């Protein structure tokens, strides 16, 4: 029996370490399926998954969609442009209308923190958070943890740095929770304007300068500078950011030779990471993308089991 009993995956913060490990172990099994000639198993046959994306996304949406198809679920994509959202429908009305068509799982990305939680409370189907504002992006943190564990065999006892725009980053928040729960030491850094006050309360240590952080690290997660999310620019110019905070080849010499470099993508080449680092031997960026599919397959599988269990329990209660 699995150690997963949740109807929804809303964030990493509320998960127990055992639940995270259950997902990572299941993902290891799922990864093999993508190496077969016929990359499909029938386990979610007859299940309907709606991918409801209120924000632009290619990688995450495609990754979820491929994961759904490899498990034989039927998936439908709804994005805000071209949907009734652009005609003024509220979020809850959209969700209720979608639910009336009886999907089993809704995967949601939204610019406002807490949107998936709101949907999970109001809807009977399962909800998976694919990113809510600057709050959480649980499947990204899970695939990052999976990638580190796959390469290094463990997470416990490692020192992992997260560098860049921490303030705007749901990836940073979910990663801090996941890595801390699995026993890693987490250092965060970036331009002072991008370090939110109080980030230490999540269990991360602030080391502002990359040069200072690098020698201690087993893994460095470089965050994307989210130019589109910046209200007013928090740094003077792209060139200055690259020079002061970007991960280039020279700066990499400060780190241990076995340092692993990760990035949630999409990368701004030459801004937060130099092309020769992104494409270099220490980079796990492409592994992250491959593993994203396996991790999302694991989440879909485990959530389906828990949801069905809950429905069965309700039926029993109803009959009693």
């Amino acid at each position, binding site marked *: *029996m699995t150690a*997963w009993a949740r109807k929804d995956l809303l964030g990493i913060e509320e998960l127990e370490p055992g639940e995270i490990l259950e997902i990572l172990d299941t993902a290891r*099994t*799922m990864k093999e399926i993508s190496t077969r*000639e016929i990359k*499909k198993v029938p*386990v979610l046959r007859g299940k309907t998954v709606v991918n409801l994306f209120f924000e632009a996304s290619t990688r995450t949406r495609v990754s979820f969609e491929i994961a759904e198809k490899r498990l034989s679920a039927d998936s439908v994509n709804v994005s805000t442009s071209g949907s009734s959202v652009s005609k003024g429908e509220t979020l809850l009305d959209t969700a209720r209308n979608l639910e009336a068509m009886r999907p089993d799982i809704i995967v949601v990305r939204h610019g406002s923190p807490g949107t998936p939680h709101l949907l999970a409370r109001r809807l009977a189907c399962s909800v998976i958070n694919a990113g809510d504002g600057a709050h959480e992006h649980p499947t990204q943190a899970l695939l990052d943890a999976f990638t580190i564990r796959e390469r290094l065999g463990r997470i416990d006892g490692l020192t992992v740095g997260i560098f860049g725009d921490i303030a705007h980053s749901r990836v940073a928040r979910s990663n801090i929770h996941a890595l801390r729960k699995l026993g890693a030491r987490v250092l965060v850094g970036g331009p002072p304007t991008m370090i939110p006050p109080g980030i230490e309360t999540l269990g991360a240590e602030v080391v502002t300068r990359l040069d200072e952080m690098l020698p201690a690290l087993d893994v460095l997660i470089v965050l994307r500078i989210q130019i589109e999310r910046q209200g007013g620019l928090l740094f003077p110019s792209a060139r200055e950011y690259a020079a002061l905070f970007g991960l280039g080849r020279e700066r990499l010499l400060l780190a241990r030779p076995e340092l692993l470099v990760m990035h949630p993508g999409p990368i701004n080449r030459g801004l937060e990471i130099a092309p020769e680092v992104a494409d270099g031997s220490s980079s796990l960026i492409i592994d992250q993308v491959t593993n994203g599919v396996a991790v999302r397959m694991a989440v879909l*599988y485990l959530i389906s*089991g*828990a949801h069905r269990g809950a429905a069965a329990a309700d039926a029993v209660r109803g009959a009693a």
Partner: protein
Amino acid sequence: MNAKAEILDETGVRRALVRIAHEILEKNQGLADVVLVGLRSRGDHLARRLAAFLFEIEGTAVPVGVMDVTLYRDDLAHASLWPRVQRTEIPFSVEGRTVVLVDDVLFTGRSVRAALDSLMDFGRPRSIQLAVLIDRGHRELPIRADFVGKNVPTARRELVQVLLLETDGVDRVAIAAGEAER
């Protein structure tokens, strides 16, 4: 579990497997293109043992794969517990081969049905054969075994327990009254 009647002890398990190894050789007139695929969680150990006996007898190393059929089961919607999925490892092509599926107990036939579907997704074997340590009857599908260690007539509610050295520290097959679990 209630009082158990022993069906096979360590010697009995070994003899059954040795005989099955000979039967596999006889039926296929050798081991050309024969591969073994064990079904988790005990068929995988039985498959490795069969391969060892085949090597002793013929001097040929037969490839052994492991399969977890959870993702192909037809009873997930009714299962009381959502099973943990374990890895399927078939590190060779099954295309054109004779695949001998190996399982511990043949009961309803539903696991074997799932295994057949799963195997087809890996390629098109020339033929698929089935070897089981125990056939306890009560089939719900038109499936039969090619090689049987021991036929054991059982009541539906009885429980057949297979213990193996690799997982349980002892080789023993026993039958007990109780809720059938398979």
